[in-house]
């Protein structure tokens, strides 16, 4: 059977925005159930809250605690219409601006307030480049 296997090939895939920047992973897919027509994929959900629901209740609690610590507004979940998908390969390319997505706020806050304070994260001493890369990965989500 051909076609796109949603669980194996789409769920948890890396998302990149129109600038080819990593913006997180496909944490959930929203399907639209239509009368007399096959269900269609309506949207991609990205964000810690959705991911946490898949892990378990304790992770939902941890996510809420982190968000309140960061004084984050909203639930931090980005809903990307499946119409915005441009390419599905090793990564999924979507025609959105990653900087504008609410799902990246917590990661950006962590990168700015926590990761950057770790010795070496700003390129002090050895592992200058490696440290910077690690910071970038956290910021990428």
């Amino acid at each position: 059977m051909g076609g796109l296997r949603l669980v194996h090939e789409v769920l948890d895939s890396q998302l990149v925005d129109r600038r080819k920047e990593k913006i997180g992973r496909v944490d959930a897919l929203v399907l639209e159930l239509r009368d007399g027509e096959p269900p269609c994929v309506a949207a991609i959900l990205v964000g810690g809250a959705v991911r946490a629901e898949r892990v378990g209740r304790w992770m939902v609690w941890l996510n809420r605690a982190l968000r309140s610590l960061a004084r984050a507004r909203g639930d931090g979940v980005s809903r990307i219409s499946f119409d915005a998908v441009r390419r599905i390969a090793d990564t999924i390319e979507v025609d959105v601006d990653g900087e504008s997505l609410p799902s990246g706020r917590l990661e950006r806050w962590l990168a700015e307030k926590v990761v950057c304070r770790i010795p070496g994260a700003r390129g002090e001493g050895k592992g200058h480049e490696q440290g910077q890369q690690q910071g970038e990965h956290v910021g990428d989500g």
Partner: protein
Amino acid sequence: MSAREIRLGDLTGRVVRDPDGRSVGRIEELCAEIAPREGGNDYEVVVFHVGAYGAFEALAGGRFAQHALKRAGKLVGYQRYEVPWDWLDFSDPEHPRLTRRRSELTSRTSS
């Protein structure tokens, strides 16, 4: 999210029952195909993979258990059915129902 929208994760793992109320298996995979429409494309789910674990059905609730049971393959009597979208009734998405007889389904023993 509107009443007609559902998350993929809320469908996978759901037990599918036949018209007589007997368990056919659990939804494991959804296969989508591109359907052109005005102004773009839709990805439509055309086939659902439903996995049956025979006598081990009760143990197959979690993802880890499902993977382990699939590995065991024939030992646990694992079978996978490819169910066309219009053979499933999602009027109650928590309790999907097969609209045809189980004997009409195409079975594949490998995962």
